[in-house]
């Protein structure tokens, strides 16, 4: 059991790490995060512990339970009239951009 002296005890896994180094590299790529080699074992360990921890959710009987879609029951996504409300402020917005030319955001060449 995890026992941090805290109210709720959690079952600790005696199993080997849930995630492999390759899986961490895969997740990092999906998330578009370049990791340093030294970061990989750290995330392998902490993400394995986190997935073990959240595995506690399996204990709950959720048969016939509808997943929550909104914290306030009965609220639905509001629609607004399809009218133009914004003015063109691209010059102000682009002041924060790392690289801009002629009102366009610059990125490395995508199509050869």
């Amino acid at each position, binding site marked *: 059991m*995890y026992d*941090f*002296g*805290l*109210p*709720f*005890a*959690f079952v600790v896994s005696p199993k080997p790490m849930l995630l492999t180094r390759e899986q961490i590299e895969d*997740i*990092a*790529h*999906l*998330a*578009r*995060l*370049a*990791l*340093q080699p030294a*970061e990989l074992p*750290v*995330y392998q360990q*902490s*993400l394995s*512990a*986190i*997935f073990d*921890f*959240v*595995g*506690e*959710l*399996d*204990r*709950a009987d*959720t048969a016939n*339970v*509808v*997943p*929550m*879609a*909104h*914290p*306030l029951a009965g*609220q639905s*996504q*509001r629609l*607004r009239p399809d009218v133009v409300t914004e003015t063109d*402020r691209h010059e*102000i*917005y682009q*002041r*924060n*951009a*790392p*690289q801009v030319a002629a009102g366009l*955001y610059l*990125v*490395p*060449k*995508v199509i050869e």
Partner: protein
Amino acid sequence: MNRVSIHTKTLAQLSKGLRAREFSSVELVRTFLDRIDAHQPMLNAMITVMRDQALTAAQAADRELAAGRGGPLAGLPIVHKDLFCTEGVLTTCGSHMLDNFVSPYDATVVAKLKSAGAITLAKSNMDEFAMGSSNETSYFGPVRNPWNTDLVPGGSSGGSAAAVAARLVPAATATDTGGSIRQPAALCGVTGVKPTYGRVSRYGMIAFASSLDQGGVIAATAEDAALVLREMSGFDPNDSTSVDMPVPDYVAGLDAPLAGLKIGLLKEFFEKGLDAANEKRIREALAVYQRLGATLREVSLPNLPLSVPAYYVVAPAECSSNLARFDGVRFGHRAKDPRDLTDLYERSRGEGFGAEVKRRIMTGTYVLSAGYKDKYYLKAQKVRQLISADFKRAFSEVDVLMGPTTPTPAFPIGAKTADPITMYLNDIYTIGANLAGLPAMSIPCGFAASLPVGLQIVGPHFSEGKLLNAAHLFQRETDWHTRMPEAFK
């Protein structure tokens, strides 16, 4: 004007003083700016100080006040957590990713408080992207707890809580995704309110987990919190989850008698793990409520123990989606000399985000990935439904729930950084209210080994007025909220 003691006054008292012209807004603002500067090396509570803008705004406020005009917060100083976009001002979210981001617009909260007359003095330090419970994940360094500067102030709104505790400002905005208003308020001995989901606009509040994030306020007293919350709340067409309901006058309802108030004690909050001294202070606070005519009864929320694992699926999932916008193209940090577009994305994000943010993005990416969505994400949303139903059942029997805000008082800087799950469990008592979208508060209720202890009050949706009323009457009976850390008197 006695500039020595003015910082000890509440927002309500300062407002009266300004209206009576006992002192000017410029004098007031300068007093607090000087305190911010004097204590910044020790506390690190701020990321950006807006001295010139604040003094200019204070001069304008003085003209309004002299003419008998001015909004409800005219001339009063405030600080914004550095995830509220502030036009023309650096808005960093505590991250290297945004350490050069000057917001092109005001968050609705910032605009509303500005139009109510409040003067923004500074942007407060915070855990990076509000991910943390100790303010140690900030790119700008940890904030220190004014009660003992070797300890954390809590997080993620650690700068706002420490600033109010040290009276560097009478009130500060904050946000709460899993406890980020209430936990630092408890650890710093101040009053914090997390409103109902949808009560305060999220427009311009840099998103972490959109179904959980909610803006609120930290102040010295419930009355001050009510003054600010009344002005921040309300419908905003720019936030699609903003609720179109009138805002009650939270200040007018503060003195309603509590006789007959039914208080539920969450059985799960008083089980193993609650620090004995904390529990003693909580029990003493409950006795105060009994003297005020409230009745106590134990209630059980059997699914509440699963709130932390449910949160650490839902919040990272939403974070991984929200933080996809930081791509090194339109704003924020960009890596040098990218080989190609993928390299640009990956290195900009790898360099721009800190360790905890990357951990949560990866957690969220995994729980939403093919083959795992049902196992983790949908399962967590079902558990969330069960937790919400538990609260609903409890509120059919009682008016409010009370218990501790945190299991222990503030802990040393560095004590919990090695193991993320130990850190995550700091929010064990606060996360439930976020999952269910409920309003909740923390108020000071005494000390354990010279450190503040927070009493948490949770109510049904849109019961902020009742919570503030209960907190205010407690503060009329006690003086914990007036205590100040010795070094900052």
